[in-house]
């Protein structure tokens, strides 16, 4: 069966997709680059006016005095060698270093959040679907609606107040203590956890109504087997689809959560680099996020071959 699945995923198609990803990445780079430069101001413009000669020297140092197309080509040239350039605002630090420093922190909390989303969201959705319109369903759906509606920073601050300040169960900031992970992971996963629970529920309910589920019952299969073998597998296909972007989203962190819990992650660079007009940081982080998102979507698309035998990429190659 595994062989059968692989045969529906020809190398030519994988290659085609990878090339397409590079083209998309180039489009992202180009668009971001020119949009960024179209916005008035620059990295060295601030309330404290710099002396014109210092500004000119800085611009010359970072190549900002060259024509824009030249800057663009220079940048493209360095990106190809995976060099995202020096940060304009943190002297002596490259964007590569910025990402390398912040990513582990972000990825750790993000990965835990992903686990949380899958390990709790899917079972909760299943429990709700199997108890349709009874109290477990109502309970899960109520919590999921609240979880999806309340912004993460509200969840974060309220939890911080109750569990860190009032009860003192967990530290209020930092990840030095393993208990420090609880609140950021919870706040980070809240929205997607609710989303996945709702999606799993509706997808499973739809599957349970399919004719082949009646066939499975007519064969005399046990309830458990019907649910796991016939029900769950089919209903998880849309869940897996959405997990690609969800993983990309969670692993690249959240500005708000990292701000509230004082986590030295990559998420805050997303926002700070923009207000700082830190050109290379904006570019670098955007490229990183875009590449990561595309990679996740790519992986999910490849996984389809195993999930759904009707997917056959041979015809697309």
């Amino acid at each position, binding site marked *: *069966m595994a062989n*059968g699945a692989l045969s529906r995923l020809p190398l030519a198609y994988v290659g085609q997709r990878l090339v397409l990803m590079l083209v998309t990445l180039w489009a992202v780079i180009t668009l971001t680059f020119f949009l960024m430069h179209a916005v008035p101001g620059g990295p060295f413009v601030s309330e404290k006016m710099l002396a014109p000669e210092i500004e000119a020297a800085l611009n010359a140092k970072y190549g900002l005095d060259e024509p824009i197309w030249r800057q663009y080509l220079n940048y493209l040239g360095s990106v190809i060698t995976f060099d995202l350039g020096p940060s304009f605002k943190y002297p002596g630090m490259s964007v590569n270093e910025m990402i390398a420093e912040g990513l582990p922190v972000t990825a750790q909390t993000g990965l835990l959040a992903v686990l949380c989303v899958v390990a709790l969201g899917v079972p909760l959705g299943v429990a709700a679907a199997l108890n*349709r319109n009874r109290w477990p369903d109502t309970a899960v759906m109520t919590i999921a609606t609240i979880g999806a509606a309340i912004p993460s920073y509200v969840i974060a601050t309220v939890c911080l107040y109750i569990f860190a300040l009032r009860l003192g169960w967990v530290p209020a900031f930092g990840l030095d203590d393993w208990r420090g992970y609880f609140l950021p992971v919870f706040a980070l996963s809240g929205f997607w956890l609710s989303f996945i629970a709702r999606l799993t529920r509706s997808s499973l309910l739809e599957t349970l*109504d*399919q*004719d*082949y589920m*009646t*066939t*499975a*019952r*007519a*064969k*005399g*299969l*046990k*309830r458990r*087997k019907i649910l796991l*073998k*016939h029900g769950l*597998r*089919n209903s998880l296909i849309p869940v897996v689809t959405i997990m690609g972007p969800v993983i990309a989203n969670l692993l690249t962190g959240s500005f708000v959560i990292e701000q509230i819990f004082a986590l030295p992650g990559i998420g805050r660079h997303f926002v700070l680099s923009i207000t700082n007009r830190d050109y290379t940081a904006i570019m670098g982080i955007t490229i990183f996020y875009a590449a990561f998102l595309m990679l996740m979507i790519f992986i999910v698309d490849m996984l389809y071959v195993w*999930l*759904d*035998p*009707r997917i056959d990429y041979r015809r697309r190659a």
Partner: protein
Amino acid sequence: MTELLNVTGLTTSFHTSRGRVQAVRGVDLTVKPGEILGIVGESGSGKSVTCMSILRLLKRQGRIEGGSAVFDGRDLMELDEDALTDLRGNEIGVIFQDPMSSLNPTLTVGEQVIETVLRHRNIGRRAARARAVELFEMVRIPSAATRVDAYPHEFSGGMRQRVMIAIALACEPKLLIADEPTTALDVTIQRQILSLIKELQGRLGMAVILITHDLGVIAETADRVMVMYGGMVMEEAPVAEIFALPRHPYTRGLMASIPDPRTAGEGRLSPIPGTPPDMSDPPKGCPFAPRCPVAMRVCAEEMPRLYEAGGPANRSRCWLMDEAAPARAPYNTEDAA
């Protein structure tokens, strides 16, 4: 006790947002070992729901509200879930209407046969697989040995229905319920599937309940016919007799609406005027009375019982069968046909 299946007073309703829909209202039926019982009726007449109720395979909103179904000495309505699942797919097999949606798209067709065999037979996976190949050969799926590893989407509708038949017959059931097995198929394929069912029925000696709205299918396949309307049995008779002399006005209407090849293109079809009753608020009397060309006053007022009509195996739910009926003569005597 010569009957394999004996259903009495089966009553099933669906609880929908529009209220309670009385799909089956007190159906009695019997099936003898090895016979083919045809159930005919329009959409919504309760024929499918009757059979799904017997197996307790109704979807969520369906509720069996009364009656019994004794199969081989056991009342299916009283069995616990375990005993019932032991029986489903083992002693009673089912084929559904739409082969496009009744197979799980993410499992190989072979696996869908194998899991049925493994569930009911104490044999290993290898033996179950061999059995699946054997079944595929029996239902004449070409290159059975390799096709067991294919997925449903790689099969045509007719081939999928063959897979469904293989699943239903995997454990050599005593009863096969075929719920409109050919309705979703091309006409040429219909014939193949029907003759396959009939052939296997003869070879395996099983009984069949064949649900259809196609009288032609009934004429070719069934031994005995039950006509349903408005969730009730309207008429029941051996197949030759019902075509020779339909007793119930509804059956007559059905027969009259079959296009006659001898007059094809000349005359018009003569459909039964009107529409079937709304089963969330069924008429007080005979459900067919509002559309019946020979309805009397009593028909709308009171439900007729099933009269014995013309023979011990013939029943008809019509006031014309009553001794007091004034116009019973043309509908109740041999020379009326």
